[in-house]
């Protein structure tokens, strides 16, 4: 009998994350307190017009360490966007709490930079104007020149130096989202939240922006949480991938560690030894298992602590 394609390591006996030897030592080892802690989060819409209450998700619990990139994968309708809105503080959960850097999230704040799927740029402002709006909100004490320089730094970072004075209507979708990313980063948030930021873009633009995001988050060590339904995007960008079951009553089924080296690139992704095992694991989940996740009982106060999975290499084919 062949071994199963993956192994569930019991959370208690989990081995420390293998660290890539080509990189400097991780400044934020997994034992440090997490930057963001999601505790037993639930969202239920109350009963209306004779309809029973509708539970979007319940008992969500997970943590994100500082400097890590976490992707959330799941089908439409499992409440991914609601979860992100709750993390952003734009929506209130009906259960549980989100704790960011030791403080409970009660509303939107400049601690979190949000990148919207449809960019949400203000069309009456130039690229620079959109960024300085954010910078002025974050650093109201700064002079105009200082804010402008700061904004231009981030416009350069996303490669839009030439277009700083253009209006959003003069930009392509990909360039608009670069502005969105620059705006999210310019407030130097503790946490960057992205709701399918590349979902509205064509495949080519999407690819180049994935590279760009990968470069920026590795450069800036920005803690990020991103919703996507693109498996390859998650594999390229994420250190950990959170898998959500289908709604209603969605739960977090498992959290998968990304075994690929930090030096991974989009072009070289499919040459990585662990690429196919990981991809197959994620694909199997989305295609088959996401609909039949067993719902364990919710631990009061802790919610459902999902198992953390390390995908195992494929067995070498026997000669």
């Amino acid at each position, binding site marked *: 009998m062949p071994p199963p394609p993956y192994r569930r390591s019991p959370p208690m006996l989990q081995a420390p994350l293998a660290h890539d030897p080509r990189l400097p030592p991780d400044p934020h080892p997994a034992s440090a307190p997490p930057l963001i802690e999601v505790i037993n989060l639930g969202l239920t819409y109350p009963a209306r017009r004779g309809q029973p209450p509708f539970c979007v998700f319940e008992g969500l619990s997970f943590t994100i360490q500082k400097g890590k990139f976490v992707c959330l994968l799941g089908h439409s309708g499992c409440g991914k966007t609601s979860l992100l809105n709750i993390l952003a503080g734009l929506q209130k959960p009906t259960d549980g709490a989100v704790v960011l850097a030791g403080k409970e999230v009660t509303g*939107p704040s*400049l601690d979190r930079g949000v990148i919207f799927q449809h960019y949400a740029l*203000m069309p009456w402002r130039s690229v620079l104007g959109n960024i300085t709006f954010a910078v002025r909100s974050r650093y109201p004490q700064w002079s105009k020149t200082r804010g402008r320089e700061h904004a231009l730094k981030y416009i350069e970072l996303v490669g839009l130096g030439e277009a700083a004075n253009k209006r*959003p*209507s003069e930009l392509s979708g990909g360039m608009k989202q670069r502005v969105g990313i620059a705006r999210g980063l310019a407030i130097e948030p503790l946490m960057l939240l992205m709701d399918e930021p590349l979902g509205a873009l064509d495949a080519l633009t999407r690819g180049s922006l994935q590279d760009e995001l990968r470069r920026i988050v590795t450069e800036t060590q920005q803690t990020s949480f991103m919703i996507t339904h693109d498996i390859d995007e998650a594999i390229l960008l994420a250190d950990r991938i959170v898998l959500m079951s289908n709604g209603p009553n969605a739960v977090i089924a498992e959290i998968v560690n990304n075994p690929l080296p930090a030096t991974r690139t989009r072009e070289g992704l499919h040459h990585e030894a662990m690429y196919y095992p990981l991809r197959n694991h994620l694909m199997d989940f989305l295609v088959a298992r996401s609909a039949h996740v067993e719902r364990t009982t919710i631990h009061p106060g802790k919610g459902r602590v999902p198992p953390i999975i390390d995908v195992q290499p494929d067995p070498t084919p026997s000669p």
Partner: protein
Amino acid sequence: MEYVKSLIVTLLILAALLGVWAAGTRDGVADTSVDPELAALLGPSAKGESPVPGPEDVGAAVWGHLKDPFYDKGPNDKGIGTQLFFSLVRVLGGFGLAVIVAVPLGFVIGSSPLMQRSLEPFIQILKPVSPLAWMPLALYVIKDAAQSSIFVIWICSVWPLLINTAFGVASVRPEWLNVARCHEVGWLRRSFTVVLPAAAPTILTGMKISIGIAWLVIVAAEMLVGGTGIGYFVWNEWNNLSLTNVIVAIFAIGVVGMVLDQGLAGLTRLVSYEE
């Protein structure tokens, strides 16, 4: 090229209209059977002249008014420029007061569904009332003809402004408001840097509609209250049986109305944005 073509067509239509006008008002043959002294009393038709002035009469009158538009020879004889100035002051006064009241109120209505629903019946009932119907009430309460006409202008300008401002504010895209929330932008800064620029094109369209209606209404209002203004000028010249001056006034009202409309259209272009 397109512009030149349309200009040529415009000039052709103008020539045709002037031709029809000139032909329609050509003087006939004088009726010699009428005693000349009686004919002088009976007016132009008895002398065989057309009762409606032709383009050349009006042209001469326009030239006369343009040479000295601002003369003032007593209450019943003021230059057409002076009269237009009085009307413009009333319109801009009433319109300005309407902007001061309606834009902030529209902001409140647009940002609160509760206020929107509770004020809806009042707006729906008061909006279709002809502003002139307020005139007797205004005259009785204010007891001043000039201020009453400003009030009438105010009340007719308020509705389009109120409705457009409320609509513009209510249709600010929620994602822009979310951006403001995520950046912890306060109420005042959000109003001025997000909501106002987002709603500005709709608000200015409301202003354009308002000032157009105000300019329509001022003529009728001044006919009623008398004294000064282009409406009173028209009424006065009708009493003088000077149709030439009435026609001159029609052109003058049209030109000023167009300038007001184009001015606000220009302002609207300044604040409009492309998504």
